[in-house]
């Protein structure tokens, strides 16, 4: 008798609408509790193959570029302001003169370039000359229509440089070859092969942070001070156009 009552109750429970109501309530509670996570996840899974599309990707990239350029501009302005506060040289990208190489002597006793812009175009002695890849030299002399560039590789030519990673300064000295020597001012250079060599941010002659080259080899035991051989990133033998930066002239 008892057994049959239990069976009747079980059948009523199973076949009745109780479970439907219970499950619906549980589902509703789950959705509310997870704030529709299941639906959203399902929606994202379904849209995954088509989003972001080509156009959307371009928009995203464009937005990213715009954001980066704004950030770069803000940082440059900030940097300029701080450099002025410290009385250091500015790196003004707006003041550049483009010039063509009209004569080249990059492997002789004198290693120089002649360019087709002179004092009439505002070129002055001591200005920095850069090419694709980075710094290539300084203006040595000027005529009204041309200028002579003394290359970094010219024997005895010296400019200040540093290795950004170690923040150690040195003097980049031309040795006649394509690989000038960076003579360090410290006894322990800590330089490694592959380190980037740039102009010093503390330089009062050259614009800061111009790429010069990459460390090719290091001699820590050299006397009186260690040195590194630097592979230049801008090859003077292959450059037809250069740019002159107008902010460090010796008037």
């Amino acid at each position, binding site marked *: 008798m008892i057994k049959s009552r239990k069976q009747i109750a079980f059948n009523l429970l199973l076949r009745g609408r109780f479970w439907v109501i219970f499950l619906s309530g549980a589902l509703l509670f789950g959705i509310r509790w997870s704030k529709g996570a299941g639906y959203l996840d399902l929606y994202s899974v379904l849209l995954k193959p088509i989003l972001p599309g080509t156009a959307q990707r371009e928009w995203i990239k464009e937005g990213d570029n715009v954001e980066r350029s704004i950030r770069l501009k803000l940082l440059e302005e900030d940097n300029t302001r701080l450099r002025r506060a410290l009385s250091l040289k500015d790196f003004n990208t707006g003041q550049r003169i483009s010039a063509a190489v*009209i*004569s*080249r*002597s*990059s*492997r*002789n*006793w*004198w290693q*120089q370039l*002649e360019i087709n812009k002179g004092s009439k175009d505002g070129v002055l002695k001591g200005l920095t000359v850069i090419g694709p890849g980075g710094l290539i030299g300084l203006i*040595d*002399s000027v005529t009204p229509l041309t200028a*002579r560039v*003394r290359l970094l590789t*010219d*024997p*005895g030519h*010296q400019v200040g440089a540093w290795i950004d990673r170690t923040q150690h300064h040195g*003097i980049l*000295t031309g*040795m*006649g*070859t394509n690989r000038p020597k960076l*003579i360090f001012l410290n006894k322990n250079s800590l330089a490694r092969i592959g380190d980037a060599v740039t102009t010093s941010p503390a330089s009062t002659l050259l614009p800061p942070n111009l790429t010069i080259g990459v460390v090719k080899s290091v001699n820590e035991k050299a006397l009186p001070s260690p040195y590194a051989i630097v592979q230049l990133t801008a090859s003077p*033998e292959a450059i037809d156009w250069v740019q002159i930066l107008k902010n460090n002239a010796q008037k």
Partner: protein
Amino acid sequence: MLKNNKNILIFLILICLQFCIITAPDWLKINGITPCWPVILLLPFSLRNSRLKSSIAAVWLGVFIDSFTIDDVSYVPSLLLLSVVWSTYRLHNKKIELFLNIGLMAILGTAFVGFSIWIQKIFFYSVLRNNWFHSWSIFVLISEVIITGLVAPFFSSWLLLTYKKN
């Protein structure tokens, strides 16, 4: 058209020399090194003129060619000495027009000019004294000597013959 030796030298220096230096044609280069033009021009002139005239020409040529290079070291001392030596050689040796002789003199002259520039560079730039035997200097010296030795027999011989005719 050109009446005397002086006019020929003036014409060559003012027109041809700077053209050769500035344009520096690739087919006249060895490893990017051009011939030593002042030696090529001075050699025949010195072999046909007195010491005084040669010395004046050497100084003039040296000053002129120095204006096309970076202002640190000069061609003048070495060219002056070479002009004196070649003028003296002219007084003692009559057979100077031999083809190879001219080339050999140009080679020795170029080597001397190269050494002079090398030593001056080492003298003026203390940083080069740490390791004065640079591979770069040897490279430039040998290349310049070779290309000058190849060009001089033709160009200097022709100039010498022209001077003689005048």
